[in-house]
């Protein structure tokens, strides 16, 4: 029998609202972090670095993608846990340990690291396509370098950043392995709840109702991205 009971449960139970909220918030946070990190990096790669350095940077960005996702997540566990590299380094310079292993902060760091290449590549592609002549024109008209970056390069590169954000946002939104491995108590994502409803509770209708949420979020996101010209940049 068709009814909206499962959707009602989604909306009414605070636990599910907070899980959806956490997932979306993390996806936004990771996307913003990656955009901020990727833009200067991609700018350097596309417009400053020599051919040789550019090749090296490309390799540095792409090589981690050849390693298993799990290996990279486990590497971060080793860095962030109580006796890990981070706390060891902090202690050796006389600082108190940072207890960020198995927290949402740890998830934020790991997600930002894992999806960073997916932001750098489209941003790089967009930046490389900005014609040198436009910058020369800006310089002729008296714009300093930073002014030119802000008013000429940034608007032209924006579709590339938005294209990259589609990856970082959707990949974070749909992930459920990093929360299991890196998250602590109170780190469940939408994906984890779907997984437990399919695998453990056998409550497939509820899992299906919950699966609609990321689909709807992505539909809205893609519409906005299209308006911003992301698909031309891909």
């Amino acid at each position, binding site marked *: 029998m068709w009814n909206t009971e499962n959707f009602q449960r989604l909306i009414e139970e605070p636990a599910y609202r*907070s899980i959806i909220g956490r997932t979306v918030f993390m996806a936004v946070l990771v996307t913003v972090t990656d955009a901020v990190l990727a833009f200067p990096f991609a700018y350097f790669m596309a417009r400053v670095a020599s051919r040789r350095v550019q090749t090296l940077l490309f390799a540095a960005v792409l090589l981690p993608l050849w390693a298993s996702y799990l290996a990279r997540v486990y590497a971060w566990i080793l860095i962030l*846990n109580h006796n*890990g590299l981070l706390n060891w380094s902090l202690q050796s310079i006389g600082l108190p340990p940072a207890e960020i292993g*198995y927290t949402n902060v740890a998830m934020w760091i790991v997600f930002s690291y894992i999806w960073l290449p997916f932001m750098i590549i489209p941003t790089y592609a967009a930046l490389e396509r900005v014609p040198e002549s436009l910058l020369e024109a800006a310089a002729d008209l008296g714009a300093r370098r930073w002014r030119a970056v802000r008013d000429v390069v940034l608007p032209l590169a924006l579709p590339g950043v938005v294209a990259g954000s589609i990856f970082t946002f959707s990949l974070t939104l749909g992930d459920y392995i990093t929360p299991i491995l890196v998250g602590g*108590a109170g780190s*469940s994502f939408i994906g984890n709840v779907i997984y*437990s409803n399919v695998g*453990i509770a056998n409550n497939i*209708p509820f899992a299906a109702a919950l699966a609609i949420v990321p689909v709807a979020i992505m539909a809205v996101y893609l519409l906005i991205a299209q308006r911003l010209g992301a698909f031309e940049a891909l």
Partner: protein
Amino acid sequence: MKLGALAAVMSLALVACGTTNNNTGNTQAPPPTANMKPLDKVGPGEGQLNLIAWEGYVDDSWAKPFTTQTGCVINAKYAGYSDEMVSLMKSGGGGQYDMVSASGDADLRLIYSGDVRPMNEKLIPDFNTFQTYFKNPPYNTISGVHYGISLQWGPNTLLYSTTKFPNKPTSWNVIYDPANRGLITVPDNPIQIADAALYLSKTQPSLGIKDPYELTKPQFDAAVKLLTDQRPLIKKYWALASDEISLFQNGDVVVGAAWPYQTIQLKAAGAKVDDTIPTEGATGWGDTWMLATKAPHPNCAYLWTQYVSTAKVQAEQALFFGETPVNTQACAQMEALQAGSCAQYHANAPGSYFDSIHFWKTPIPTCADGSQNCIPYDKWVSAWTTIKG
């Protein structure tokens, strides 16, 4: 269809009545396969045997000699979770696998969905020397019909760092104590609600909890509240035994709920830990080899069950995995392999010992008094999602 199967459990449980009695197992309504006649004699092996097992349960050291003896070649599929076992048994219409080494939290689900069939214990010579409790435990025996043959068991223990706790903790309250904030780990498993209920049955007798797997609404809510209050104290809900081992090794946690396996591994790695069964008692798991309803190789399946029930194989598996054999004759074999292990694993425990261990079973709506007021497993699962946020 999974949903249909679950509905079948519910509707069957609705008409069920009766009480739980350890002597004849469980006396719920008859499962769908209750009238299937088990084999009355084991024929020659079919040459193949497809098993779903916990990792380590089909180790070459005892599986190879079995194949040499019987000609049954074993194809083992390892599962990580009870729920994975349940879905694997249903996969491909159920005709793919012969047996599953299911734990008590999966057994009733498998039995009531009709995925497993009765077994004839008379074909297992070593059954007679089984620990009495494991001949008819309520998680695999219903109205005297055996839906599988018990294999091994173990308690869910309290694991603690001996540096942090120089004196052995005597109560489970250490994992609910705000003093240990951020230093606690418990399993990521809805059945953990039973551990909370067991603790409440001793600390809040007014709730009247008798069986931690049969909880009425107020009892269930109290257990959920205890676990919700516990959440801010938890460092991590562990999913795999290896997760908990690394949490203790790296000093991320100092106390948690565990299996003897983790203690053995940690001690072997030189970690300063120990485990105990606190005064409130403990929950435990009992594993059972269950025979698939559509098993394509039933003779090999019986030959395998006979083989793993023998004292020698029981002892080997117990020491390999860190669990306790159900065959009382295995004790001598264990001592021969590793002195002191029989007592260490409680393989020689008197019958009364099993009163302190509350073995996992799937929560169903029917309470022991026959009423339908108990909270079924799917509610446990959704409550667990809410608890761990």
